[in-house]
């Protein structure tokens, strides 16, 4: 509780000298609001139900920030990370009967479907010899920092439920996302920016805004959407014709009136509101500064690929005609680094769509080209600045794709792959992850996991562990039940830890 709240009858002068307009504003702001985002959810939360908020980790953390790069739509692990020579040999053969009799398919007609090899060339990278396809040469150069997990699995078969599963640990609606849980559990280190930020490039994802909702947690734990150009946060710009000095004068007058009311009715929500107006005002400066890349060297901009042109061609699934997705994705990666530097806890970079049911080669080439260089630059840049140790970078999606070519009725040309939640690949780096290792394995055609299966809940349990949080203890009581990110499952995977 702020000192101000403990002494409600202090004079107004004293209040203003120490809080709203002076240096003390920072103190008030942080005291009231280190809670989650910029927002003092405590006052609200305490009046709307019990909460098990903890702001200290359960044990010493390895990671302070997370950059979650979410490739919505399900990239093909078989064409990027998990080479299957045997699958190439079996190209055009039917699926083994024991598999198609038990498996479930979205579009594929299993009786007539045939296996589809990958045309990609795989190369070993780094000292560890991790394999990447020719679509990801830049990421390959980070191999020794990366943990490649080839044995993720999920229960969800369709995109939106699968995306909720990956973000919330359970596919039901109304649940908090990973970024909400982390900011709820740890708060934010940033004085001037939200603790949980979302950046998007390309077309919208299947899950839309539900992928960064706070569910039953207060909305102050929702992801705040930032744009990489123009107005970075909604409503950040003053109305046209209103100069900063009048915004300031207005806020001073507002602070006085609100404070007068506070002295009259003693409601701590008013104090929170005063602080939030001040924080909003600071965001009006800090957010544009954040997205202003003029202080970055040309070499850095080029490293990430800022201002890259779009590749030739039209109709790619990973973009829309009016979007410059290659440039936007590069900016988002660079902004993620700048946010982490400024104490943002969780950055969710969303790119859609990787849902390549058809024309797999040209679409995956477009998407891989969009993301390969910027992500590699991000990892390299974080490392160069000594931030990678405390920044967890995660690359992944809701599920993977089938080794079968898609033979949906009317599109039997076998140029794409169907949904595959039974075995898919994700990457992790930094933040206490032991790089240079491949974890888990799949069978010779990539259908089933043969070694070390990792459920989405296990991934989440391990991520929370890196942040010093015990996934069993990070809970929130809602409708009589203590909920957690890992639902009723989850186990930490010790061999991932550095």
């Amino acid at each position, binding site marked *: 509780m702020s000192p101000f709240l403990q002494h409600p009858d202090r004079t107004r002068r004293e209040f203003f000298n120490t809080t709203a307009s002076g240096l003390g504003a920072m103190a008030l702001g942080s005291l009231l609001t280190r809670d989650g985002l910029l927002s003092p959810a405590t006052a609200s939360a305490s*009046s709307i139900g019990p909460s098990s908020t903890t702001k200290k980790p359960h044990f010493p953390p390895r990671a302070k920030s997370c950059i979650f790069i979410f490739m919505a739509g399900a990239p093909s692990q078989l064409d990027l990370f998990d080479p299957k020579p045997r699958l190439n040999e079996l190209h055009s053969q039917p699926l083994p009967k024991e598999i198609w009799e038990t498996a479930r398919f979205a579009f594929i007609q299993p009786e007539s479907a045939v296996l589809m090899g990958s045309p990609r060339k795989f190369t070993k990278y780094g000292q560890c010899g991790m394999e990447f396809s020719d679509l990801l040469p830049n990421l390959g150069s980070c191999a020794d920092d990366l943990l490649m997990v080839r044995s993720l699995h999920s229960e969800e078969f369709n995109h939106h439920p699968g995306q909720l599963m990956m973000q919330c640990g359970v596919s039901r609606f109304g649940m908090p996302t990973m970024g909400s849980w982390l900011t709820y559990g740890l708060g934010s280190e940033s004085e001037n920016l939200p603790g949980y930020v979302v950046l998007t490039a390309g077309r919208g994802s299947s899950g839309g805004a539900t992928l960064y909702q706070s569910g039953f947690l207060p909305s102050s734990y929702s992801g705040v959407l930032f744009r990489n150009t123009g107005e970075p946060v909604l409503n950040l710009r003053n109305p046209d*014709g209103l100069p900063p000095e009048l915004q300031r004068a207005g806020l001073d007058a507002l602070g006085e009136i609100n404070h007068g009311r506070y002295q009259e009715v003693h409601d701590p929500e008013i104090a929170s509101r005063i602080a939030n107006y001040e924080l909003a005002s600071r965001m009006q400066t800090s957010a544009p500064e954040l997205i202003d890349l003029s202080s970055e060297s040309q070499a850095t901009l080029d490293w990430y690929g800022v201002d890259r042109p779009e590749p030739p061609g039209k109709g790619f699934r990973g973009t829309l005609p009016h979007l410059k997705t290659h440039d936007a994705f590069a900016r988002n990666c660079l902004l993620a680094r700048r946010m982490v530097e400024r104490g943002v806890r969780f950055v969710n970079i969303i790119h859609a769509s990787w849902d390549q049911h058809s024309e797999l080669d040209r679409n995956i080439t477009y998407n891989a080209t969009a993301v390969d260089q910027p992500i590699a630059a991000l990892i390299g840049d974080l490392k160069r600045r000594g931030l990678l140790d405390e920044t967890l970078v995660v690359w992944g999606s809701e599920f993977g794709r089938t080794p079968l070519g898609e033979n949906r009725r009317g599109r039997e040309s076998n140029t794409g792959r169907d949904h595959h939640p039974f075995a898919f690949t994700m990457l992790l780096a930094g933040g206490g992850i032991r790089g240079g290792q491949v974890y888990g394995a799949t069978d010779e055609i990539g259908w089933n996991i043969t070694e070390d299966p990792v459920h989405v809940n296990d991934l989440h349990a391990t991520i929370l562990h890196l942040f010093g949080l015990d996934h069993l203890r990070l809970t929130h009581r809602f409708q009589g039940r203590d909920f957690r990110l890992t639902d009723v499952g989850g186990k930490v995977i010790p061999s991932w830890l550095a």
Partner: protein
Amino acid sequence: MLRLALPFALSLLVASSYGPAARAEESSPAVTFAQNIQPLLAQRCLECHGPDAQEGGLRLDRRETALAELDSGDTAIVPGDPAASALIERVASESADLRMPPEGEPLTHDEVEQLRKWIAAGAHFTGHWAYEPLSTAQPPVPRNTVGIVNEIDQFVRARLEQEGIEPSPPADRYTLIKRLYYDLHGVTPTIAEVDDFVANTSPDAYERLVDRLLASPRFAERWARHWLDKARYADSDGYEKDNHRPDAWRYRDWVIHAIHTDLPFDEFTIQQLAGDMLLDRTPLAHLATAFHRQTLTNTEGGTDQEQWRVAAVMDRTETLGSVWLGLTVGCARCHNHKYDDFTQREYYQLFAYFNNGDETTTEMVTSPESQAKYERELAAHQDSVARQRKQVERIREHLLLTEEAQGLGEQNDETIEEFALTHEEYAQAKAELEELQAQAPKPPRMKVRVISEREEDRRTTHVLHRGEFKQPQESVAPGTPSTLPGWGADDASPKSRLEMARWLVSGENPLVPRVAVNHIWGHLFGQGIVRTVEDFGVRGERPTHPGLLDWLAGEYIRLGWSRKKLAKRIVMSATYRQQSRHRPELSDVDPTNRWLYRQNRFRVEAEAIRDLYLSAAGLLSSKIGGPSVFPPIPPGITDLNYNSAFQWKVSGGEDRFRRGMYTYFKRTAPHPNLTTFDCPDSNVTCLKRRRSNTPLAALVTLNNRVFHEASQALARRILTADLEGDGQRIERAFRLCVARPPEPSEQKTLHELLATSRDWYASHPEEARQLVGNYAVANVDSREAAAWIATVRIIMNMDEFITRE
């Protein structure tokens, strides 16, 4: 079948009613099962020793099992003998290996002592309070009855007297009228309404104001929105495709209409849950079943439609549990409930009521008003057709009398017509008739999604292993939870969805009226009497005023389930009319105002915030219902949804300024002005909105377009009003927002801001024109208008404006 959770007669330590006798319970330091033991067991024991799991053979939620011999041969509870009870030994153990519970902190000394005392006194179990019959005890009579209006005050005052706390004095009349407008209408009162009320000293002035507000359609809109939260109402399908639902608004309008006409809550319930099955089913009753068509529809490619049908039926089952029963039954999809006595089998028995309700469409009128208009237009049209037909006939008869007509050979209809058409006069009249006939008004009909009970090929319901639609187990018949009383003479389960709906509101089921009045109370006090409005189970909070809750529940039934009458009872009470000022001297004793020694202050909901701004500015449209509208939205928001074909085409005219509840709600890309203020996402039912207080919210009211437009319009409003001087103008703007006049210090602050703004705009005419935008005022220099906008926008950002006090 014995349906109550009381398996045997008990010599109860406590009375089961909450009347005067119950006060002894509430104030007594004696240990009771309901107050001390059951909450402790629910929090710390039942997860492993409850309905779902019985580790070591121990189940602690029922007396007969809690007293039974364990796998180990010990007995957990020996009534009257704590020393022989293994439970005490284990919870008090010094050894971490033996101590229960195995996880978390050990029980406190006090908790162990409570268990000990309770066992010593005989280890009596009582049923969970929420399932007990409603108490019929009379309201207590407090010592001090000064200022008491009705029974509500008797309950609250008696409780305060036990705590030794004085109630707060009544709020001043400005606050009272503002409070009533915010709670009942969600818009600002006009200055004239405020002045009338403040000046009216007649004893019934307050009551007349309440009656007037309850009778207005503004009340129906405001309270419909509360219900729409529960209905998870939206204008799109949800999930990836999130397609447009062109008919969703028709259900929203049904809710508004039902509340406006004060459709009793029992009928309101029956129509929404089973309106399709009523013998005397009206189209409106069938439309009501769209309550359960607000479930999401997954049309993503490659979906198994049976999976999503089952998911929707589960949502219907769980929404029923939350909205009417206050129970979170969802856990039992996969396993028996861990805390509440609700089995997986019972879940699928509830599910079975909905499993044969098919998703269908029906055709109906778009609104009663449009139907009436249609009927008027049709009658007028038929008149003019008849007139024109007469005209045609007249001409024909006239032609037949001519000589030329005599020359015709055989005269029949065909030849006469042929003949007549050769005459231009006739041909033209005939053509006009045909044209007129073609212009008949079209009946205002539309297709709406509803539920219709499946008649043939009916589905059998199975328990689904782990909730998986592909793993059916044994079949089950429809049935209601065994902890609740049954129905009819033989106390049996309702057999059909219609019977189940009737059972809910039969008055025999005590949960439904308790839950329903708690919702209404919550909207008028910002907190329920049961604060966990979504959870009346054993882990939920107990009512702060059990006797009051039961009295209100009984009163709701006695008032014929009239929502308006019950709301009136509540707002008439002295408890409601208290000041909301916090009392620092009580901040340690009762920081969250459990005992209602004051009213509560709270920020209003997202839609109401918009409505307050627009009404104070004089911009708010009063149009009721119809298709949802598209007020301006920041660029890029709709790009976030997957369906790239979706376009947010900004509405024109008054549709830009409709109430917030009419804003189109797209589930995967909702309007940010709604979500920033905690509007629910409409994917699942919402029983209680959150009230966050964030910098993003501050940015909305400072800078967002519609809020800025409200400032512009408010400035124009006071500049064109018949007022003199800055002081009057400031006061007018201030009062348009918060009803009361400003304090001198507030006047002074605003004068200074006005002066600063004038100074600045004096030398910045271009910026002044920008700020004024489309809200220029005739004969007022834009620099002056801009200075006013810069000032009134700060009034509009006062905490008091968006706070119901």
